[in-house]
């Protein structure tokens, strides 16, 4: 899935996260994570985000995540929503989720 425009999903409420995606002119995939619990759960958050992007076949773009203590399921959902919006995609392949 190719990110063709800027998009966001989520909120900065507790237990949620805000995900911003944008095209990347360099052709690389850059993921930036900021979290209140980065010391405790940084690796797990990174793993979930990377896995979600891999399943969506996102190989380039900019992804910035502001985490407010979200659980894995919410991270997956918000990253997926932001990517789908950024790709302008209406059709979902549910097996990718």
């Amino acid at each position, binding site marked *: 899935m190719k990110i063709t425009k800027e998009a966001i999903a989520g909120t900065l409420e507790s237990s*949620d996260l805000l995900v911003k995606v944008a095209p990347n002119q360099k052709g690389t995939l850059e993921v930036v994570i900021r979290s209140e619990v980065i010391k405790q759960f940084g690796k797990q958050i990174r793993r979930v985000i990377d896995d979600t992007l891999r399943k969506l076949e996102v190989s380039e773009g900019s992804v910035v995540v502001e985490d407010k203590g979200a659980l894995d399921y*919410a991270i997956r959902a*918000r990253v997926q929503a932001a990517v789908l919006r950024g790709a302008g995609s209406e059709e*979902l392949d*549910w097996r990718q989720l």
Partner: protein
Amino acid sequence: MRKARRSMLFVPGDNPGMLSTAFVYQPDSVMFDLEDAVSPREKDSARLLVFHTLSLPAYKDVERVVRINRLDSEYGLKDLEAAIRGGADVVRLPKTDSAEEVHELESHVARLEKECGCRVGQTKLIAAIESASGVVNALSIATASTRMVAIALAGFDYLVDMQTKRSGGSEPELFYARAALLHAARAAHIDAFDVAYGNVDDDEGFLREVQIAKQLGFNGKSLIHPRQVYLLHRAYAPSEAELMYAKRVIAAAEDAHGKGQGVVSLDGKMIDPPVIKEAEEVLSRADVA
């Protein structure tokens, strides 16, 4: 014995904080809402949140209901696909006016169950009735599908349609709709949910309405705040005397069954199937309380 269906707690589908914690209030059913609680611009994101929430182990002992948007909206079929692929136990259809709408929903559910390799028939249905037409057609709606497990009255839209509003007190404006829904549910052998009570700070008003619903015969209510779950369960709990008697009825019936007797008496009264059924209902209501 079937699990009681007293409390159906609404949880906004776009709120991860609530989606991940609603189970702690121990409602009988949790209803992840993709309809009125979610703004149009957030429908896509909420759909994904609900899809993933359905797989949380924390909800394995709670009936998971998804309220979708109407099928004639641009969101309805997408919501339904998320619900079925996520493994929802029940789909709740809002603003149901006729049996044809249930038939249409049922055909889409069966198609999606086949597509995702689920057992066809595993997803149950609830129809919310929110208009005069829906109330008039309640019986045909309740009997429209073998998947139907309940019908629910939604008071706000219904009263707007009836050109009136809540009066408080004994609520005569809802009497006909409540009675009509209950008769339809009982004739169809499914459950009936009473309206949600909107003022979450008014426990007294809520409990007054619960007593009306309970006395009429509703299985329970739709709830919009977690604090209402405990209040409702406590109000629906049988008394100690009712509980003791129910246990004795079941024990007497089991004893008679073991001896090959068709009927048995307890305290001079005949214990027949309706009495046993009532005793089982009392025990199911006491289960969580």
